[in-house]
């Protein structure tokens, strides 16, 4: 599966958002996710399917004004 994760290209053997997070090493971390510009709640990551060319955003806390 070829997808973009935070703007970088990845080729990973994941069929769902949850699997992608596990393979990327973020499975146990507190993150917020969006797929192709739409919010993916944590509760639906395991059932949100990935397709080639998808854009996954994985965000976390950062300083802000």
């Amino acid at each position, binding site marked *: 599966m070829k997808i973009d994760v*935070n*703007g970088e290209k990845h080729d990973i053997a994941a069929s769902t958002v949850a699997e992608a997070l596990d393979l990327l090493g*973020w499975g146990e*971390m*507190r*993150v*917020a*996710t*969006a797929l192709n*510009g*739409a*919010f993916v*709640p*944590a509760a639906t990551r395991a059932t949100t399917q990935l397709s080639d060319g998808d854009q996954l*955003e*994985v*965000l*976390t*806390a*950062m*300083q*802000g*004004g």
Partner: protein
Amino acid sequence: MRDFYGTTLDTPMMLGTARYPSPKVMEEAFRESRASVATVSLRREGGGGEAFREMVRALGIHVLPNTAGCHTAREAITTAQMAREYFETDWIKLEVIGNDDTLQPDPFGLVEAAKALCDDGFKVFPYTTEDSVLAARLVDAGCRVLMPWGAPIGSGQGLNNPFGLKALRAAFPDIPLVVDAGLGLPSHAAQAMEMGYDAILLNTAVAEAQDPAAMARAFGLAAEAGALAARSGPMPVRDMAQPSTPVIGKAWL
């Protein structure tokens, strides 16, 4: 203090968490400012996010995530949804930027996003201008707090349009108003509070001071002084002098 979506803040100070020389200095600045609210953001995972979140939680004050950097309603709405889950709060500082040089809000995208988010149960703190027509649209959309800019973000210019800010205060006597952005000196904070504003929100003026903790304390004191002045009924301004010492009883020398 006025009610912010059912929450009464202990102080009229809201402070950003960005641009400090170190996490330790940031913690000192928050302590010295007596800020009631800390603004935060969400960015791509690059390590350290969870530690930062824990540090902000340890401040023991309200967390207000922002949608900084969003240029469309869609981006801002998605960011707000992610922030609500991540930070476990339905408060959102809504920024929809329309111009990269001035970081001025896009009023059309702002109203669109505010409506969608209010309908979705968010408690929206919109970063807006002092335009009272735009403010009315935001209130129509469901916003019960408005945060007009004092000047462009990070500029330190103070209150560029005192007339507009006063007019906004007069037009919305029952809506909590926060001057957000552009403050450079504690006197700017006092000026905003003397106008009857309910709080101030700033970041750069504290974080980029040579001594952020001392500047944070100065801003906190100024905001509280301005608030106390506003509650105390300022005297009217007159064109001509009026002697404060009684004239009656003066010796004839």
